[in-house]
């Protein structure tokens, strides 16, 4: 019965320092500066900052399974994380009366990425994204899934609100895409780096790599993103079929 208060009580470094709190505020500010430099500023105006908009993305950031933060026993999965991260945008979306087809187009690529990730990791849990698969088809699927996720960010972030809530949302979406990269780097670094050092060194590298990749994605013309997404989607289907056929 005391498990839940105990876990929440031990989570204060996550809430105050990392990956939520101070880290989230500074990193989201820097990320927005970087994205603005890459031509990726949100087109929608920033709503006034309210706890109602800030808390859901902040909750996801706080619960992200990022080393070297203290483990939290109640992790999130992709659907919950995405709903919480997209909350500020959804409020704006509902107010704008956009056609549902546009909303579907925005989420088509992230959902293809989710499909690849689910087939690769066998589940929807965020912690599962950190486990770099041993089998080659699953590895390829996870890599393609992460790449498609990062590729989908420009469209999602441009068509979303700015301001602090939008920045936290952008950071959350970027960090979800950085998790498979972190898993891959950790698997590679495990051979030549002590686990404790890897816990401190690898996450910043993965986050930096994901930020650079998303910055590059912002420079790709939207039409070309569509083509790359279509090819990626076909690759996901082919790899998923192959992976399913190799399961005993």
């Amino acid at each position, binding site marked *: 019965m005391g498990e839940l208060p105990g876990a929440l009580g031990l989570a204060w470094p996550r809430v105050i320092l990392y990956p939520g709190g101070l880290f989230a505020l500074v990193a989201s500010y820097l990320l927005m500066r970087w994205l603005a430099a890459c031509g990726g500023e949100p087109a929608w105006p920033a709503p006034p900052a309210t706890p109602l908009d800030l808390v859901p993305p902040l909750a996801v950031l706080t619960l992200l399974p990022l080393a070297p933060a203290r483990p939290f026993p109640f992790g999130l999965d992709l*659907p919950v994380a995405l709903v919480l991260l997209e909350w500020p945008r959804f409020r704006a979306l*509902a107010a704008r009366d956009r056609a549902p087809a546009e*909303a579907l187009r925005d989420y088509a690529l992230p959902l293809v990425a989710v499909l690849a990730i689910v087939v690769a990791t066998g589940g*929807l849990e965020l912690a599962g994204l950190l486990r770099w698969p041993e089998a080659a088809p699953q590895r390829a699927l996870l890599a393609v899934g992460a790449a498609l996720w990062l590729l989908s960010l420009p469209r999602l972030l441009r068509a979303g609100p700015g301001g602090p809530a939008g920045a936290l949302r952008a950071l959350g979406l970027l960090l979800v895409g950085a998790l498979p990269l972190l898993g891959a780097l950790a698997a590679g670094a495990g051979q030549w780096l002590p686990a404790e050092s890897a816990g401190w060194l690898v996450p910043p590298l993965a986050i930096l790599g994901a930020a650079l990749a998303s910055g590059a994605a912002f420079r790709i013309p939207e039409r070309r993103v569509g083509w790359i997404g279509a090819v990626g989607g076909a690759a996901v289907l082919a790899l998923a079929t192959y992976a399913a056929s190799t399961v005993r």
Partner: protein
Amino acid sequence: MVVRNASLALIVSLLAIGLTLAGLTRAAPLAVWNGLLRADALSALLLIVVAAHGLVTLAHGALRPWRVAAAAWLVGMATLQGHLAALGGLLVLAGLLQDTGSVDERPVWYRHVRRLAPLGVLAGLALVGMTGGAWNYGAPLAGAGLNSVSFALILVAALLALDAPALAGERALAGTPMVASGCLYVLVRLFSLGPWNLGWLFAALLMGGLVAFWAAWRAALAPAEQSAPWLNLSLSGMAITGVGLGSAAGLTVAGYVLLLWPVLRLGLERPVAGTRALWLLSAAVPLSGPFVAGWLAIAAATAGGLPALAVVLWLAALLMALPPARLALAPAVSSSSDGRVWLAAGCSAGLGLGAPLLLMALLAPVTVQLEGGLTPFGEIVVWPWAGLIVAFDTTRQPVATLPSLALVGLMLVLSALCRVALRLFALRER
């Protein structure tokens, strides 16, 4: 007024019977008169759902309240029948009693399709009885008579009762939720007869997924105040998809969706635009009832090894989230009371936050008692003291996690911190 109060009392008594039976049948089903009257956790769940639909219909000001009460009681009593013919017959009677709906935009024959849909259920059940020779579904060899024709008759009847053909038309009508719930009950009850073959599971999955997505799409396209019938249909599609998964996780989805259905009807069938409470009926609000329903459906499909279906259900949940949010943001046009909407919002929040308890108390007994007919592809396990809901796949590996209470606790802490931080910023700016 007397008729209305008497009808209300009858439906409340039905709800009380359902709740009592839910407690009595948690451990094992009850049967009397050689199994002719039979109650298990599924019957109790349906009694509660049907009574809730009855109460919602009365709250919306039904023209003939006695018909509502009679239909609720007939469907309720049908769920307590062990005899297949009695079960189907009572549903047919309930179908005949219900109103034919509004006269607009539908040919006369079409308006009678939904009320006659239970005839398909009766025919399907009669075929099971005649083929197998056992008319009591609790009898050891009752499942011998279940074949593809009887299954197809029951599935098609359920789809007709839900008004699924409206997807091809211009608009959906409010529907006949009590009889439709009864038809869905019969579909789930087929698991008491034994495991389904893969073809039946696939047919139910296909139809359910199609209805869930297509109806959600129509709901998102329709004017927000007319979206309720589409949302109900999409939700029912999710229930059929859950049944088609044929696993404990799938049945949990179906049960949860059935419980959520009356709540959405209460809040959205005659919506009061501009009411903030409508947000709580949107799947985009974390830990609301529709959000948990969507999460359960996605998790069950993933646990069943069907990630493509999970994505389809995800899209359906996304589309379903739009109309209530639009209604909440719409300018208020009438001065009518929004009490109903607030009640529905409260129920939705209760269903969402109380999901772990609900799953444990009402839905876990259903899946345990129907275990003999279910596949092992997916299970929902609850740790109610931690508010944790986890979906496991067939190898008992967790595939999705919803830490409801931990999330609420954390969000409360973060809200307090954000409030303080924003206040400090405001003071500094001043």
